[in-house]
């Protein structure tokens, strides 16, 4: 009896906490998005919040912006992350010292920087009167502040994309480095015997080996940027805004009538992230990304 109930008892505190605080909150939000507010005497279920959302162009623009920003952020982070990892890997291959370990640590610095600080770093670098604009002006490449493109608080979301590319590239690197470190030194020698240069070695061996983990890492970054709030709140514009910011704007607009709509946006966001999460899970299991190969 004890052997059978033991795992459930051990799991009870953690599961209870998550169910109460997390799923309780989700459920609470779902009820209120359907207009069920017993405290206000509203005990009927209605879909008004959802139908209003699907009819408003603001919601659709917000959704498209969210997809675009998440897609571009994850692609840039993936390319930058892979560039960092492959150079670290090649460095490790050609040296025996612990230097590559130090490099690896240094490249992970952006991962530990809080998101708001990361966002502000991008503001200082890329705003029209920012550091890069000052450098370009001093070099004589631009004459006016307005010659520098609007990259921060712009409707396209470049500021958000740049922040996430910078913040998440080390994450991508962290995910693919362990896979690369399983490539044996001898493979490199064999490749050289058959006449492969560094570039051929990267293209024929390194890239195919890291492809599954790389794809999954990119997808995780996509799901994360899809639902993140802080950076779009700091670096976006009021209209159109990314979904989490749109929900926050509705929630704090002051009128109680907007709250079910805010919660409806949240429920749609949660449903989309669950869907994306299942896709990641399916492919990481199928490709055996987390375990590697035998």
């Amino acid at each position, binding site marked *: 009896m004890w052997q059978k109930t033991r795992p*459930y008892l051990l*799991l009870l505190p953690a*599961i209870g906490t998550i169910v109460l605080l997390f799923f309780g909150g989700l459920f*609470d939000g779902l009820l209120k998005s359907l207009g069920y507010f017993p405290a206000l005497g509203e005990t009927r279920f209605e879909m008004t919040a959802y139908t209003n959302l699907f009819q408003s162009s603001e919601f659709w623009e917000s959704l498209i912006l969210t997809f675009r920003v998440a897609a571009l952020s994850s692609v840039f982070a993936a390319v930058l992350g892979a560039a960092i990892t492959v150079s670290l890997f090649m460095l490790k291959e*050609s*040296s025996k010292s612990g230097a590559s370990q130090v490099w690896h640590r240094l490249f992970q610095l952006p991962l530990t920087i809080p998101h708001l600080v990361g966002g502000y770093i991008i503001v200082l670098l890329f705003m029209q009167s920012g550091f890069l604009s000052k450098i370009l002006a001093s070099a004589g490449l631009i004459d006016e502040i307005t010659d520098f493109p609007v990259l921060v608080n712009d409707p396209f979301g470049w500021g958000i994309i740049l922040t996430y590319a910078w913040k998440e590239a080390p994450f991508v690197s962290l995910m693919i480095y362990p896979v690369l470190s399983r490539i044996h030194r001898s493979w490199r020698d064999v490749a050289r015997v058959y006449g492969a240069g560094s570039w051929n070695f990267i293209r024929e061996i390194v890239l195919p080996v890291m492809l599954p983990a790389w794809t999954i890492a990119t997808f995780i970054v996509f799901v994360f940027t899809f639902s993140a709030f802080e950076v779009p709140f700091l670096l976006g514009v009021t209209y159109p805004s990314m979904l989490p910011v749109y929900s926050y704007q509705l929630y704090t607009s002051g009128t109680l009538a907007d709250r079910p709509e805010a919660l409806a946006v949240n429920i749609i966001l949660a449903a989309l992230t669950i869907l994306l999460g299942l896709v990641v899970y399916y492919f990481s299991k199928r490709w055996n990304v987390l375990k590697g190969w035998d």
Partner: protein
Amino acid sequence: MKSPRRLLNSILFLLLFFVIGLPFVPLILSSVSFGWPWPNVLPDSFSFRAWEYVLADSSGTWSVVGTSLLVAFIVTAVNLLLAVPAANALVRNSFRGKWLMEAIIFAPIVIPPFVAVMGIHLTFLRLGLTETILGVVLAHISPTLPYMVRAIMISYNTLSVDWENQARMLGAGPISRFVHVVLPHLLPGIAAGASLSILISLSQYLITFIIGSGQVVTLPILLFPFISGGDPAVASAYSLLYAGIAVLTLVGMDLALKKYYQNKKAATGKG
């Protein structure tokens, strides 16, 4: 053989400088600047006024740092108590509904936690949990707990039951088995989980703002008005302080762990 390596090294150094170094340059310069008009690459004059303001008692920075760390450490301690038994059950047993249990515990990694917090906000309001540290701690648990469980599970994976049975045969009771056999083995996982938990708790803006309603002031809440259009020098100084605390917490955790193993090694060496 030597020249391609030097080339690779310099390419890597350039990449490091552009990706890691350069972004911090304007942040540091701006925090010690006194007027920095376009198009000068360097500020006109330097002053420590922003740092003096930030570090002075009157600006209340230290009580905010205290609140942030207090919340982060309580959250981490609670997570630890919840995560160790959960990780044990998930790694060592196969039982009915295990996938469901895992799905529940790891759900907050995928579904954004602010969705749950916005949903539970009115209930917290009715229970008097808003504007309190306790409320903020409760809100920070779901985004952090999954990472703690994950980290401790990795450590449990490499701990064989045989070791505990061995200790049992030598007459160790459940408590001393846990303290002397299990805990030392889990320590790296606990340290990794705690670092993640502290880092994630320190960086929560939205859920702290919703539940704390501006009354529980943590570092991101304090920082936001400055970076969204305040004095750039003060904003930069606060940003550096905030990032510094996050990085120092991680480094401190790492060093404490190394120190523990050194002492351990010394102790067993003597024995």
